[in-house]
């Protein structure tokens, strides 16, 4: 059994303008000790997925019925605030993009660290202080005893993020959710933080969910990758599969739109158009309006999740088309037959 099992997660925001399906049927597993990357553009639902796991959503948002989030076999959806309080910080911890806003500017670092420790464990003040200093040392803060009495403004951005990580790890969570942890930081500081997260992950054996839009960070950190677009997963698989064998047009587009490592003089191939308006979702594949390879069926029907191989799944009609062309998919049921005729019509045009 996987450590975290998310099944058909649907989170919607109910606004005056209508229902915004920010997360629309997301399913994935997270194994112990693995790093899972969630990539996608702003508004693709990657942060809302994380907040749904923690249940720290805005009051206008609701996790809809039929969603399931199981942590170690325990169902979290609908479990109530009391149960969630034992989960948050203890079993699942989260760190946010901007370390300044996640620290209280009016309390010392020591106070905030100790508060988290005393809240979640039965350590007394002295023990909590000891633990806090130990954690600061773990994240490479020099002179931790002295630093305990300082306020957040006295630290640089990278150090603040390290303190937030120390706070998140103080109770030895099973899962650390990192929501764009290095986006606000400079590259050399980013390298420090990623290195730190990597070594701590190995040392403590926790699982990490890494939310980012930076494919470079994903390549460096993650074992498995989920690519999200318009609230649903369009492709998921191991990092190598996603980077070297992308099977969804959106993922392919993302890979083409970033400058390559070799730095050869080539024009970038951007994805045309703009991200979709979640209030006006199309009936078919959400990426179809921006997709260069879109076929008729893409606009009409949402593609099913399809196994590319044992480590790789994608939701794209192109794979069905390819499968039919090279004969690996046969017209088994009436369902697929209908799809294929629809496609056949398209390719004849």
């Amino acid at each position, binding site marked *: 059994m996987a450590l975290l099992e998310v099944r058909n997660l649907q989170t919607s925001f109910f606004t005056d303008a209508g229902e915004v399906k920010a997360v629309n049927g997301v399913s994935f597993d997270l194994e112990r000790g693995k790093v899972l990357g969630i990539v996608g*553009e702003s508004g693709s639902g990657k942060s809302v997925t994380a907040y749904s796991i923690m249940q720290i959503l805005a009051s206008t948002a609701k996790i809809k019925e039929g969603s399931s989030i199981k942590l170690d076999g325990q169902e979290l959806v609908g479990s109530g605030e009391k149960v969630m309080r034992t989960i948050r910080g203890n079993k699942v911890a989260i760190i946010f993009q901007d370390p300044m806003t996640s620290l209280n500017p009016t309390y010392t670092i020591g106070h905030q660290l100790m508060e988290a420790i005393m809240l979640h464990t039965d350590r007394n003040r002295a023990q909590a202080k000891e633990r806090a200093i130990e954690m600061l040392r773990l994240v490479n803060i020099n002179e931790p005893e002295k630093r305990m009495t300082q306020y957040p403004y006295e630290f640089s951005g990278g150090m603040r993020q390290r303190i937030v990580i120390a706070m998140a790890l103080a109770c030895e969570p099973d899962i650390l959710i990192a929501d764009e942890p290095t986006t606000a930081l*400079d590259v*050399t500081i980013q*390298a420090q933080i990623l290195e730190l997260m990597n070594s701590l992950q190995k040392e403590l054996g926790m699982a990490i969910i890494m939310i980012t839009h930076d494919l470079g960070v994903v*390549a*460096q950190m993650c074992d498995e990758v989920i690519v999200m677009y318009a609230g649903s997963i369009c492709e998921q698989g191991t990092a190598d599969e996603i980077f070297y064998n992308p099977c969804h047009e959106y993922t392919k587009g993302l890979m083409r739109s970033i400058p390559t490592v070799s730095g050869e003089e080539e024009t970038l191939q951007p994805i045309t158009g703009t991200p979709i308006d979640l209030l006006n979702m199309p009936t078919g594949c959400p990426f179809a309006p921006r997709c260069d390879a879109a076929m008729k069926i893409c606009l009409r029907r949402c593609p099913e999740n399809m196994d590319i191989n044992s480590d790789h799944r994608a939701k794209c009609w192109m794979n069905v088309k390819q499968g039919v062309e090279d004969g690996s998919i046969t017209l088994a049921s009436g369902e697929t037959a209908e799809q294929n005729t629809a496609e056949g019509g398209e390719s004849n045009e």
Partner: protein
Amino acid sequence: MSDKLDKVSAQDAVAAPATETPLVEVKGLKQYFNINTGLFKSKPLKAVDGVSFSIKKGETLGLVGESGCGKTTVGRTLLHLYKPTAGEIYYNGKKIVTKADVDAFRKKAAMVFQDPYSSLNPRMTVSDIIGEPLDIHKLYATKEERTEKILELMDHVGLNSEHASRYAHEFSGGQRQRIGIARALAINPDFIVCDEPVSALDVSIQAQVINMFDELQDKMGLSYLFIAHDLLVVRHISNRIAVMYLGKMVELADANEIYSHPLHPYSKALMSAVPVPDPKIARANQRIALGGDIPSPLNAPSGCPFRTRCPYATEQCAAEMPEFREVSGGHFVACHNLDKAN
């Protein structure tokens, strides 16, 4: 190390650089801000401390460095948005001294800002935003000509002309950045300072805007000073790249050269820290970890600013700032210990 350098310089000696007048040249630019440290006390913050470079016509110079290194200040001071504390700025070989010089320079030099949200006035329509530089520099004779120019500019940057009467908030980030670029193009400039123009955009939109910068350069022969912290993007768009650290320029070289053979210990660490979007390379990548943080520019270290984090620092580094010297054709570095570092 010396082998490598000799080889490079031999190559460059063959292809002798043309000695044309650079479009924009900066010599010893300094920009200090006075920071109040007490009731009657103040202290200079040396945001830019003696930076020199030149940009040829049609060239893109990338400027990289971490936050607080002064790269944005260089761009702003260059356009006299701040009055330089010291240093000389030349445009087409002519030194900019008087107010009239500045005005003339600004007719040919524009700026694109990082944040497409705060850099557009929410109370102005798109046509007013793009038309404002035309109004200021009186670049039209009749009202019809103004409208025509605005629509032409919108077309240039791929904006629908029907959107001319809309307000900035009705557009997405990428489209807003296009409005900002159209505004910069309004004066028909030779030179544009691009201050992190794509940092706030999503990856897929980022590529659209980068391609547009490329196309405009080809079409209009523009020169860019491209300030950014995303090194892969900078390398893609730039001919040459300058690396800044704490107000000083530490290295300047051809874009691919600085990426594949950085010489300064800071550039080396910076290049190795770039997250590479390729899992196999990323896993094998030996990152040079820099300890500590960038010091405050208010208490900059003596001598070489990087010495507090540099693994090769010696007493000499604390005593004097290394000279920014050319080690091979077009490759400038400021470091005392190049032999040790390479």
